[in-house]
C-alpha cells in the first residue's frame, strides 16, 4: 500500500516519516490515557483533528498550486472567502419562506458547501489569470486575493445572522459507554462531520493522483520544467489554470469547514492565519500530501495541547502557552524533516516563445 502511495525515494521517505510520527503520537496517547484518563486523551485527539482539518486543506491547496509551478499565498483569502460565502448561503437558505425542500439539511448544507468551494475555486482561477495571463508577480497576486477577501467579507459581514444549523456528525458512536476501549475508539473514529472525512479521503486521493496518474506526472513536470513539458506537447497554461481552480476549491473546503462544520457562524478574519500556517506545513511536508497531513496533525495536536494546558493553573503567562503550537511545530518539523526541495520552477511565470 505504501508503495502505491509514494513515488520516488525522497517521497517515500516523507511518507515513512509521516507514518512514524503518527505511530509516536499514538503511543504517547496510549501512555497518556493511563496517566490522565481516556476522556482527556480522546478530547485532545478530537481537538487535534478538528484543528488539523483547515490546515490540511490549506496545505493541499498549496501543493496543487506549487506542484504546478505557481506560488499561492492567497490560500488565507480563498479560505476566508469560501467560509463567508458558504455561511451566507446557509443563512439565505435558512430564512423562513424559502421552499422546504431547499431547507432540508442535505440540500441546504450541500448547496452551502458547493457555493463556498466554488468561491474558493473562482479566486484560484483569478490568481491564475493574474499570474499567467497578466504576469503579475505571484506573491503580489496572492496578497491581492488575501486583501480582497478580508475587505469584502469584512464589509458585507452581517452581525448576528443565524442559520438552521451546521453539519451534523455523519455517524454516531455505535458503541455504548461501557464497552471500554471500543467506546473511546468510536469517539475518535465516528461523530465527525462529512468535511473531516472528506479531508482524509482527499489527502490519500491527491497522493495517488500526484504520483500515480497521468495528471500527476504532468503536473509535476510543469512545476519542475515547464519548457520540457511544452516541448512534449503538454499545454502548460491550461494545466496551471485547472490546477489553480482545484487549489482554490481545496482552500475553499478548509474555509467552509470552519463556518459549516466546526463553528457554525462567520466572524471577521476568522481564518486567523491558517492559510499561512498551511503554507509552512506544506513546505515542512515537502510538497507531499501525506507529509503535509502529518504536519497539519502535529500542529493541530499542539494547538489542542495548548488548549488543555490553559485549564491547568500553571504560572506561565497565557501568551507563552499560546506560542506553544507554533514553536512545537517549527522545532519538530525543522528538526526532523530536513531540507526540503521545492518544485524547481515555482514562482516564475512560464512564457511561450
Amino acid at each position, binding site marked *: 500500500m505504501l508503495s502505491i502511495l509514494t513515488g520516488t525515494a525522497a517521497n517515500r521517505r516523507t511518507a515513512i516519516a509521516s507514518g512514524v510520527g503518527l505511530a509516536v503520537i499514538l503511543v504517547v496517547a496510549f501512555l497518556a490515557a493511563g496517566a490522565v484518563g481516556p476522556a482527556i486523551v480522546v478530547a485532545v485527539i478530537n481537538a487535534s483533528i478538528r484543528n488539523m482539518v483547515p490546515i490540511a486543506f490549506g496545505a493541499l491547496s498549496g501543493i496543487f498550486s506549487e506542484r504546478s509551478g505557481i506560488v499561492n499565498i492567497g490560500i488565507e483569502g480563498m479560505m476566508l472567502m469560501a467560509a463567508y460565502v458558504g455561511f451566507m448561503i446557509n443563512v439565505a437558505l435558512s430564512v423562513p419562506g424559502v421552499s422546504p425542500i431547499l431547507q432540508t439539511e442535505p440540500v441546504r448544507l450541500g448547496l452551502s458547501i458547493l457555493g463556498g468551494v466554488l468561491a474558493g475555486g473562482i479566486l484560484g482561477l483569478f490568481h491564475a489569470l493574474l499570474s499567467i495571463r497578466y504576469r503579475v508577480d505571484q506573491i503580489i497576486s496572492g496578497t491581492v486575493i488575501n486583501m480582497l477577501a478580508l475587505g469584502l467579507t469584512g464589509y458585507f459581514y452581517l452581525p448576528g445572522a443565524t442559520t438552521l444549523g451546521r453539519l451534523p456528525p455523519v455517524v454516531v458512536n455505535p458503541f455504548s459507554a461501557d464497552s471500554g476501549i471500543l467506546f473511546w475508539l468510536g469517539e475518535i473514529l465516528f461523530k465527525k462531520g462529512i468535511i473531516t472525512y472528506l479531508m482524509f479521503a482527499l489527502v490519500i486521493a491527491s497522493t495517488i493522483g500526484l504520483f500515480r496518474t497521468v495528471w500527476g506526472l504532468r503536473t509535476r513536470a510543469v512545476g519542475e520544467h515547464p519548457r*520540457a513539458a511544452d516541448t512534449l*506537447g503538454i499545454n502548460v497554461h491550461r494545466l496551471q489554470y485547472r490546477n489553480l481552480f482545484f487549489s482554490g476549491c481545496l482552500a475553499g473546503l478548509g474555509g467552509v469547514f470552519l463556518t459549516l462544520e466546526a463553528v457554525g457562524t462567520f466572524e471577521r478574519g476568522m481564518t486567523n492565519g491558517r492559510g499561512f500556517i498551511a503554507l509552512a506545513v506544506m513546505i515542512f511536508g515537502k510538497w507531499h500530501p501525506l507529509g503535509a497531513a502529518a504536519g497539519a496533525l502535529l500542529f493541530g495536536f499542539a494547538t489542542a495541547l495548548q488548549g488543555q494546558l490553559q485549564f491547568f493553573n500553571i504560572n506561565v503567562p497565557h501568551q507563552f502557552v499560546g506560542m506553544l503550537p507554533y514553536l512545537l511545530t517549527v522545532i519538530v518539523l525543522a528538526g526532523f524533516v530536513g531540507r526540503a*526541495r521545492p518544485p524547481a520552477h515555482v514562482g516564475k511565470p512560464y512564457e511561450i516563445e
Partner: protein
Amino acid sequence: MAGNNMRNGDVVLEIRGITKHFPGVLANDNVNLTLKKGEILALLGENGAGKSTLMNIVYGLYRADSGQVLLRNQEAHFASPREAIHSGIGMVHQHFQLIPVMSVAENVVLGEEVTSGAFLDRKEAVRHVRELSEQYKLRVDPDAIIEELPVGTQQRVEIIKALYRHAEILILDEPTAVLTPQEVDELFKIMRDLADRGVSIIFITHKLKEVLTIAHRIVVMRDGQVVGEATPAESTPESLAAMMVGREVLLRVQRGPAHPQDTVLDVIGLSALDDRHHHAVRDVSFSVRSGEVLGVAGVQGNGQTELVEVLTGLRHATAGRVIIHGEDLTNTSPRSVTSSGTGHVPEDRRRFGMVDNYTVAENLVLNSYYDLPFSVPPTARTLPVVMAGYIGIFLAFFAVLASIWGALWSSALWSLTLGLFGIQDVESASREAMNGPNMVELIVMLVMVLVIGYLAHRFTMWVLRRLQKAAGKPLRFGKKDRGLVLDHRQIDQHAVGLVEQFDIRTPDVDTHAGSLSGGNQQKMVVAREFGRKPRLLVAAQPTRGIDVGSIEFIHQQIIAQRDAGAAVLLVSAELDEIVALSDRIVVMYKGEIVATVDADKVTREQLGLLMAGASAEDVLGVRAA
C-alpha cells in the same frame, strides 16, 4: 503512419521561404530546405545564423512570420510541438529538455503516457523504454534519475524520447557539443542505424570533421539565409569553414614559442570529492607560469571539472593547497579568487557563467561590477559624509524656498494661487490644514521633496566628481571600500566595446542574455573573462558550441593573453584544441595526473593512450626506445 509508403530518397520535409523576426534580429530570411527519407542532413552555420530558430519552427515551438513547411508533400501548420510530434517529428534540443528529478522512464513517456485505467502504468513504461533501448542499442537504465546521469546518457534519453513517439524525422541540435569522443562514436552508430531504417535526420554541429564523417548532404546557413550546399565527398574542412564564415578561416593556430616567467598558479597535493562524495581529484600537483599555456587533457569525467571548481573557489578541497601569486587561496571564496586577477571560463556556462535574465551589459560586468569604474562613489565609508551633505543641501534649498513661500504668503499672488485651487482665504485654508492633510498641499510637498532631492543628488555627485578629479584618484578608503552606485553609462560603454571586440551577435547590449544563440552566450562569457586582462586564466571547454570562425578568434585570444604575460590553464575535451594551444600538457586519469609532458615532445597517439589509462613509463618509454 502516412509516411510508410514512401521510399528512401523521397522528399519527406520541405521548408519553403521561411522568415522569422525577433526584436532587432532577422533570424531566418527566406529559408528553403529539403530533407529526404533516410538521409542525414548536416546543417552548418555560424553562431546566431538561425539554425536553432529554423528547427524550432519546424517543431512547432516558434511560429514563422511567413513561409511554409511541407511534410510528405502536404502543407503542415504546427501550432504546438504536440502536432509536430503527432506528425512524426522529434527534436533533441541544444539545451536538453529533461526533468532532472524524474526517472528516465517518466521523462520518456511524459505527454504520451501508457495508462491502465486512470493510472500510469509504470511497469509498461519501463518495459517500453527497455525495449527501445535494446532495439536501437541506446544503453540506459529506465529507473535512473536524470540528474544523476552523465550528459552522454541524458542525450540517449532524449533520442529515446523521440523514438518512443515514432519520430520519422529527427532533429538533433548540436548533440555532440557535450559528448566525449567515445560517446560521439556511439551516437554516430545510432544515427547510421536509424537512417538505414528510414529515419531522416537533421544534424546541427560546429565540428566540421563530424560533418564529413556522418552527413549525406550539407547545408550551410549564414545570417539567417541558406548560402550553400555541398556533399562530404566534394568538401574539405577548409572549404566548409569558408562557406560558413564567408572568408578563409585558419583552422590551425599560429603561435610563437612561449616565454614563461614566474610561477602564477601553484597547486600542491590537491584532493576533492565530487557531488556524489567520491574521490574525484586525488593528490594533484602542478604549476602554471606566466606566459605559458598548460593544457589539461583527459577524457571527460576524470576529475577535470572538479579540479577547476576547486581552483576557482566553487568546490571545497579536502586536502592540499591552491596558491595564486603567492597567496594561499585554498577554500576561500570565488570572489577572492576573482579579485586575485583570475579569469574563469566555466564549463557549464548556463549554471556558472551567466544570468539568463540579466542583460548582456550586466552579464559582462559580473566579475567587476563592484569595482571602479562601474561602481561609483559614495562608497560604504564615505556614505555618512555624503548623507550629511545631502541633508545639508536639502535644508539649504528648503530654507530658500521657505523664505520665498513666506514672502508669497502675504502677497496678492498667493491669494490668487489659493483661489485657483478653490480655497477661499488664508484663514480657512490654515483651518483646513489643522483639521487634516489637505490633498493639494500634500502633493505640492511631495513634488517639492522629489525635485529638491533630485537636485541635491545631482549636486552632491557633481561635487564628488570634482573632488575626485582634483585628487586625481578614486575617493575611497582602502581596497575594500567600494562604490555603492552602479554607473550604467560606464557599464554600457564597456559592453559595447566587448561586443564589438569579440563579435558577439546581439541586437544591443540591453538584450537579455538568455535570448542569445548558444554560441554567442559562450562568446559573451569569454569576452567578460578575457576582457579584464587576467593574470591567471582558467578556461574550461572555452570553445564548446562555438563556430569555426569564432574558435579561430578565441584561440588567437588565448595565445594573445599568454603573450601578454597571463598564465593559462586550459581544460578541454578536444584533443585537437589541447595540442594546438598548449606549451605543456598534463594528462588526468581517474582524478590523478598520470603524466606531464612538453607539448612538442608528445604525439597525439601517445596522449590518447595516456588518456585511456596507459602508464606513463609504458607510453613515453616506448617513444624513447
